[in-house]
């Protein structure tokens, strides 16, 4: 790709010609406000917040969806652009309730931030309340139709990132809404939940457990399989109240499956085993690690001695890391001396 040179707010910048104005602005260090735009998806273009002016062209253009051209001069702020951005936000607030105090997203909501930034203290536009369905494709996610601004990130993520298309937009104009068109196809992966910029999609497990800013986010590796997805455990008072992801972390870049995204409650479960158990007289009894390990080692040595190493078979877990699995098979082959080793993910 050849390069082109353009100016953005007077800053000259050279970028490859397949870049958008928004990407070029980022390189130039100029911030253009966005709402529907998401790095991992094709430009959606629903919010019109990123409109910019290009000298010599009468129509403002969406920076996210307009490719650069050599020699153009872009302005990212003007009275006209400010009015358009304000109007876009005001029109959202025609419907969006100001229930931020009870919204799970309060404090990390893009809409909240933008309304603050554009100083919108009153909305002179009115329209009757929308009558929308609140059903959603999965019971793990709650859809708040009033809060939904129809940015279509969720729809796009489901279609483009996951190639599923369980949700879509239906209806025309003001009556249009996000609808679960193929709930049967929904994998409850929560991709939509993660990309929603507002509180329109919230996780059903962790509702009202804590505000975003009081919980601590601990980056870790998902324990469910060997993929090694990165996720953040949201921790409050030493218990996990939710899972979030970051678009810039790990092989998964923000995606997870249903287990990684929603299967965290076991961590704090009362039924979880935290100590080894040894069956004595037909009953499981708590034991210490030394005792348990000594028992296992003793029994293995005994069987190997009496019946040979091939009398022992071993199966390891998909929930161990690759390194742990490697060590495990090494141990079985080199120490025990048998090839009877397998892994549950092959089943």
């Amino acid at each position, binding site marked *: 790709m050849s390069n082109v040179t353009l100016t953005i707010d007077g800053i000259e910048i050279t970028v490859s010609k397949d870049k958008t104005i928004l990407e070029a602005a980022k390189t130039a260090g100029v911030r253009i406000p966005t709402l529907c735009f998401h790095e991992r998806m094709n430009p959606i273009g629903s*919010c019109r917040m990123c409109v910019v002016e290009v000298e010599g062209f009468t129509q403002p253009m969406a920076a996210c969806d*307009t490719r650069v051209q050599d020699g153009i001069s872009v302005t990212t702020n003007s009275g006209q652009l400010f009015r358009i951005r304000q109007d*876009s936000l005001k029109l959202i607030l025609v419907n969006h309730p100001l229930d931020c105090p009870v919204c799970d997203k309060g404090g990390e909501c893009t809409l909240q931030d933008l309304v603050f930034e554009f100083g919108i203290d009153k909305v002179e536009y009115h329209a009757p309340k929308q009558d929308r369905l609140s059903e959603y494709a999965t019971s793990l996610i709650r859809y708040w139709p009033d809060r939904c601004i129809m940015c279509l990130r969720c729809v796009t993520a489901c279609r483009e990132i996951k190639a599923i298309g369980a949700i879509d937009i239906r209806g025309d*104009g003001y009556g249009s809404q996000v609808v679960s068109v193929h709930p049967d196809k929904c994998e409850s992966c929560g991709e939509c939940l993660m990309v929603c910029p507002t509180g329109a999609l919230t996780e059903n497990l962790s509702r009202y457990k804590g505000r975003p800013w009081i919980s601590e986010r601990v980056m870790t590796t998902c324990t469910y399989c060997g993929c090694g997805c990165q996720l953040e455990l949201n921790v409050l008072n030493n218990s996990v109240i939710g899972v979030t992801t970051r678009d810039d972390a790990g092989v998964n870049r923000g995606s997870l499956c249903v287990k990684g995204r929603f299967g965290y409650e076991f961590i704090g479960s009362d039924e979880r085993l935290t100590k080894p158990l040894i069956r004595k007289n037909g009953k499981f009894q708590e034991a210490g690690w030394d005792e348990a390990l000594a028992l296992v080692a003793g029994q293995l040595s005994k069987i190997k001695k009496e019946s040979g190493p091939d009398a022992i078979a071993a199966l390891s877990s998909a929930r161990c890391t690759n390194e742990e699995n490697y060590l495990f098979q090494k141990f079985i082959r080199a120490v025990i001396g048998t090839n009877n080793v397998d892994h549950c993910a092959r089943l």
Partner: protein
Amino acid sequence: MSDILFSSWGGEIIDNRGKDPRDFESVSNVTLPGHFKQDQKIKALFGWYGIVLRSADVNIVDLCREYITEVQAKSCGKCFLCRVGTKVMADTLTRICEGKGSSADLSILSRLAKSISESSKCNIGQSGPVPVLHAMEYFAEDFAEALSSKGSISAGTYISKLTAPCMDACPIHLDIPKYVECIKEGRFQEALDVIRERLPLPGVVGRVCVRPCEYHCRRTILDEPVSIKYLKRFAADCELAGKKEPEYRVVPSAKKGNVAIVGAGPAGLTCAYHLAQRGHRITIYERLGEPGGMSAIGIPDYRLPRHILRGEAGQIQKMGVTIKYNTTVGKDIMLSRIEEESDAVFLAIGAQSSTMMRVKGEDQGYRGFIPGVKYLQDINEGRDPYPEGKKVVVVGGGNVAIDCVRCSFRVNKSDVNLVYRRTKNEMPADHVEIRDAEEEQVKFHYLTNPTRVLAENGKVVGVECIRMELGEPDDSGRRRPVPIEGSEFIIDCDIVVPAIGQSIDLSLLEGTRGIETTRWGTISVNEVTKQSKLKKFFSGGDCETGPGALITGCAAGLKAAAGIDRMINGQPIELDEDDCFDKFFEAVKVFDPTEKIGLLGGQKSRHLEMLPPEIRKHTFDEVEQGFTAREAMAEADRCLRCYRVATVAV
């Protein structure tokens, strides 16, 4: 003399209000037809380009309300400003019309109108508020009056329609912006469903359409048209690649009848498809042993592989349509018999005979003298029409002539010539096809006309030609070619293929009375309803228009199906609202090539990969390789979604 009171169409302000009608200034950039339906006088047009007002008794404020309400109903909901903004505007205007408006409402209207039109994602939102802004500027008193009066304004009578430049130009009016958007968003099956609502041959038309839509694509103003044809093909190919069977929804009409169709070309097949979807029993009589008409025996396989055509025709048969092959109406079965057995008959016999050149020697039956349609039919049926012949001269400048020359290489003719009496600029053939033929090394002889076919022992040995020069323009606006005295010369050849035109074999009409024909030898029917003077008979496609294009044939089939269905159900066959809008938009052009769009362009069309000329010229394998999904989605992303609403006050 103009009868327009006010026009702001396209930004040209003509204000004749208060003037003596004799002094009315005329409007240069739009023609407002007098009537919508026969008895409906058009009082005003409100549309994407502004206002054209003819009658003073139209209430502009009420018209604004109606228009924006329509725009809101057509908004797709995919961008904030249009989705919510036009709703707020519509409600505000309704309030004003009910006598409950305030002056604050006016500032809301004008501010929103500006923001919406300046920044909406597509042309619905960009163009929707335009006439309202014009109204607020030039009809301010009307708004003031509406605000001060406490009563409500009585609503006028309006008719609205959503269109787009490409969609209007497409003879069958495919919803192009919609299916292109489906492809952009990766919903390939949905794209195909949109096409199939009107057209049953997406794979065929997606390969060989003459694409009037692309010549009317608004994107051309910025850079180049959207490759609509290739996108259509892509959608059809996807289904094939996925080995999916299309599902058709049959919505039976109240009364079902027996319909006979003569000719299984594009027109006949499309008519059958639509009638079958309404539950009628259909029999097609076809002279050949194969469906598709000219698209089977005329269009060569390297442009349109036979399995595509057979596949799509096969789908229509699966809907319950019977095709009786190898049955010539007028010979194997008489039209009168068919008439007796059927409730309606659709004649779609195409233009299958070649026109004579009117030169000496062409009527002598020389070996090597082969009319274009026959030449292509033989080759398409796998025969070399004259294996001994190696040097070919094709006469003509249209697509048929180009097909003849390109096919010649593919049956091992070594020397291939095309003789055309005007220059390349005047050639009616598709410029892409001309380029392909040039790449394959056809010898073009422009400004040349044949005068005599030369033969020895009953076999062609050459053609005598004369040089031409361009004179004065003729009726068609093209400069008339005139021969240069004494410039005769001879091209040695053993095959001469005239491909200068086709005519219609009307012999099947013998013995029937009441089906009129025109002086051009075509079947005469109502241009819109496709019904002939003899009520039971409908006709369309090449036999109505003379040699045309696939998509016009398909469009005629769709129209005829609607008429036939109405006839069987005892409903009157007359122009409906869509037909009236077709006529209306012919006058009020939907596409304006001089429009200033004000957006950044510079993204050229994507073209298909092609086999290299040296390889392709010797094979009937398909030359053009379809888009990949990624290419198709990127191409579809170029579409500007130029939907626009027109509201007519009657």
